[in-house]
């Protein structure tokens, strides 16, 4: 009986060894409008990659998005993203192919899953790269585009900063193995 318990523990421990986590990933939303480009960035991307279960889970608190101008951030939170109601942008999905993480080898991966922002969830595909570094961490780089209208986020009119309908989202994160 004890062996059985031990066995289960071992299994779950092995599963844990295949999990990688971060709370300090980098996200950038780039808006390229005809007259003005600007970006909103956050260094508080939370992420989980579970290779064993083929599961991805990422989110950011949109309150941490910084466009470099405090008032613009307030307008973004209050009028457009409505962060009091919808504080998070989140993605959960699966990878294909499931990467075989070997030191120093870059794995091109397509993740498909649900992206949710402003209370609206859509199925999206994200292309990215995963590399295992010498510290045993996983380095992730990924990019995808979203259309604000898909998520019912209005474009500001009658304002002096222009926002593009298409937002180019870039993620960069180093995920540490879960202990």
């Amino acid at each position, binding site marked *: *009986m004890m062996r*059985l*318990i031990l066995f*289960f*523990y071992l*299994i*779950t421990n092995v*599963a*844990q060894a295949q*999990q990688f*986590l971060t709370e300090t990933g980098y996200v950038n939303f780039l808006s390229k409008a005809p007259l003005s*480009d*600007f*970006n909103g960035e956050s260094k*508080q991307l*939370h*992420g*989980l990659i*579970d290779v064993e*279960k083929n*599961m991805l*889970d*990422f*989110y950011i*608190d949109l*309150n*941490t998005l*910084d466009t*470099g*101008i*405090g*008032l*613009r951030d*307030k*307008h973004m*939170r*209050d*009028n457009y993203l409505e*962060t*009091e109601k919808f*504080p*998070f942008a*989140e993605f*959960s999905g699966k990878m294909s192919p499931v990467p075989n993480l070997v030191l120093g080898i870059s794995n091109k991966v397509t993740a498909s899953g649900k992206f949710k922002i402003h209370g609206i969830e859509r199925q999206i595909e994200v292309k990215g790269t995963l590399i295992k570094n010498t510290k045993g961490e996983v380095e992730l780089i990924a990019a995808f585009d979203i259309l604000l209208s898909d998520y019912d986020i*209005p474009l*500001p009119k*009658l*304002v*002096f*900063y222009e926002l593009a309908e298409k937002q180019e989202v870039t993620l960069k994160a180093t995920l540490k193995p879960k202990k």
Partner: protein
Amino acid sequence: MKVIFICLALLLVQVSVFAQLERKLANPNQPVELIFHAPRHINLLTVEPLDKKSMHFAIMHTFGTLDGGIQNLFGLDNGANIQFSFEFALSDRLSVAASRSSKDKVYNVFGRYHVFQQTQNGNMPFSLSVAGGGGVNTSNYDFLPEAAPNFGERSSYFGQLMLARKFSPRISVQITPMMAYFTDPRRVYQIEGTQNFYMGLGFSGKIKVTDRSSLALQWIPNLNNDLRNNFGIGWDVEAGGHVFQMYFVTSQALNEQYLLAGGNGTIGDEFRLGFNVNRIFATGRRK
């Protein structure tokens, strides 16, 4: 059986724990923002803070009374009281400001400090700020038969508390207990009050009508004198870094001391058209 059950339970716990990350707010006490559109609401200062090193520039006008009708273009012919006001934020909580109002050519300096802010989680149900300062009347009084007032006699001071709450995304209210002191309130000054010390209780209301425009209300009952109470009603439009405020108000006064001591016309016929342009200049990372 028992063991298997325990093991299954253990597994399930593990699975459910690792199924998804728990969604956590970076700052659980996220402040409620944009309680008002700008640091001014009609004539009164608000709890709306400025970010460190940003600047708020307000150009405020109030014209003549409406009762002259179209002949005087509803008071626009009667000359405006114009106030220019610059406010600079030394920190996210403290800002300093200087303003100049054409009525009696008053230069004011004042500070605004944000004690605490309403939070989204309700731990702090309202925002509290304080403001205070003083000013000097720089009109030329050489025409007077008696000696012109000296610097001290031209000075006036004000202090106020601002308590505000955003009750819903649409409705915000601020209560502003305020006071003003005139060292020597002479008849020749463009104020109706004759006493030194004035107290009032300002009420400001904002009712958001569209995403970027609001109905604005202002009412300042006087607490220690018989002057008429100030009343204003207006329309705020937010456009990026600008907030335009158009309003009808019973007084031409634009600074705090004159709002309390200046006297008011009747609501309706003696309304004056007012117009503020608020601009926030940000410094820091632009791109």
